């Protein structure tokens, strides 16, 4: 797996049905493969962390970001999308 192909997606917002469905559908639409997914709800605040591999996807990074931000607007949640590389760079010696 190429580190440059993996993106980290975080989602935060008020909990309601359909958030995971909206995001995973958007990822499936662009052939992104989900590697890991975890979510919690604490006091009605929904938090999700998702790792996706874009190896087999043709999508440009910024376009993926736009699509996910659109899902974020529809669902009323805040989404960040970043290359995994920044986290491994910062937190691994």
């Amino acid at each position, binding site marked *: 797996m190429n580190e440059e192909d993996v993106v980290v997606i975080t989602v935060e917002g008020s909990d309601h049905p359909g958030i995971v469905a909206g995001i995973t559908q958007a990822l499936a639409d662009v052939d992104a493969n989900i590697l890991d997914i975890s979510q919690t709800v604490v006091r009605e605040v929904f938090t999700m962390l998702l790792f996706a591999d874009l190896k087999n996807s043709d999508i440009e*990074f910024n376009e993926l970001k736009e699509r996910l931000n659109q899902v974020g607007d529809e669902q009323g949640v805040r989404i960040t999308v970043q*290359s995994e*590389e*920044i*986290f*491994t*760079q*910062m937190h691994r010696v």
Partner: protein
Amino acid sequence: MISSEEIFETIDMVAIENLDIRTVTLGINIAGCSSSNPKKLAENVEEKIIEKGERLSEAADRIESRYGIPIVNRRISVSPVGEMIAPALKNDDEVGVEVALAMDNAAKEIGVDFIGGYSALVDRGMTKASNCLLNTIPKALSQTERVCSSVEVASTRSGINMDAVKKSGEIVKETAEKTSEDGGLGCAKLGFFANAPPDNPFMPGAMHGPGNEESSISVAISGPGVVRSVVETTDGDFSELSEAIKKTSFKMTRAGELVGRKVAEQLDVKFNIVDLSLAPTPAEGDSVAMILEKMGIEGCGAPGSTAALALLTDAVKKGGMMATPNVGGLSGSFIPVTEDSRMARAVEQGSMNIEKLEAMSSVCSVGLDMVPIPGDTSPETISAIIADECAIGMMNNKTTGIRLIPVPGKKSGDTVSFGGLLGESTIMSVSKYKSTKFSQRGGRIPAPIHSLKN
């Protein structure tokens, strides 16, 4: 795989604690643009900057989006203009101003807020060309918007060129007067240095100095807010505090290194250095003075401030050195007055004065930075302040810089506001005792004994 704590730590560093890449600076060598025809020379400079720099913003935008670390500024530094105008010089020449206007146009064309390198290296002596450049600084800075100028007047190897220092006081005064409508704003784009680094990405001292590649990318990280947060949450003794700052500095530097490397790849130029400086902004909490206060000092400038700053600067460097093989530039902590709202407050409340600032500059990476002083301060007094600061740099084998602003029409205790990142502050007092004879003596203060290392 990376843990959720680590991911949210990075996100909080950016979202809450103002971690950012302060600048991505593209250095360009313009020596080859020289010509005996002043117009042609200026045209060549403008063309070269546009050709090399037109993709800088786009590349920075792409990397910023991909890694989620904001890049606040995109800038250009060129090789010192004072070195390349010689062939075009006639008598009483203003070729420098033509070049400054060309630099300004190019900066506007490619969308960068500042362009540095209107510079001369005169630590040992002045050539005809560098002398001409120095003479045109006030005019160049008052007629352009984005051009920054710096002059190396001293070094550990050469000593302090007191003829140049004398001239510097006059240049500062004239620049302030020529930009008096904006509070002497021209002086905010003008720095004097001892041991000027050839790879500094920060304005006004940024230049693509001798010994560099044709073109290269340098980045400056900045995160006073991140370090302040670490200091706030560490209750331990100074050893523990130093360790905590080192770890944070490591992470910030790694982010800078990755961003710099990737922008350089996009532009197909060499990656030069990461500058590890903590550079404050007027934003609440994004303050170096506040870090020192959080270590247990009631008001920045109170006893203990120099020791606190020494620990901070050293820990930032140690963490950063571990994070990248490419450390350079100024790398340390900045203690500007107007640009750091807590420092400005320290001046207002009287805990900080210019003498204490000078003392603190012996243990950090710059010197007297963005210091507003009374408009009627004499050029000789300004020269003497520059000489003092240069002496600290020369004797301690480190960079020191001086950016003084004699605010026209204002006196000690008045306030001045430059807006935006340049901030605002109370005007500081300077000694009422004169140094006129000292500043007029001229010649060179010889290099110290420890310059003889061979």
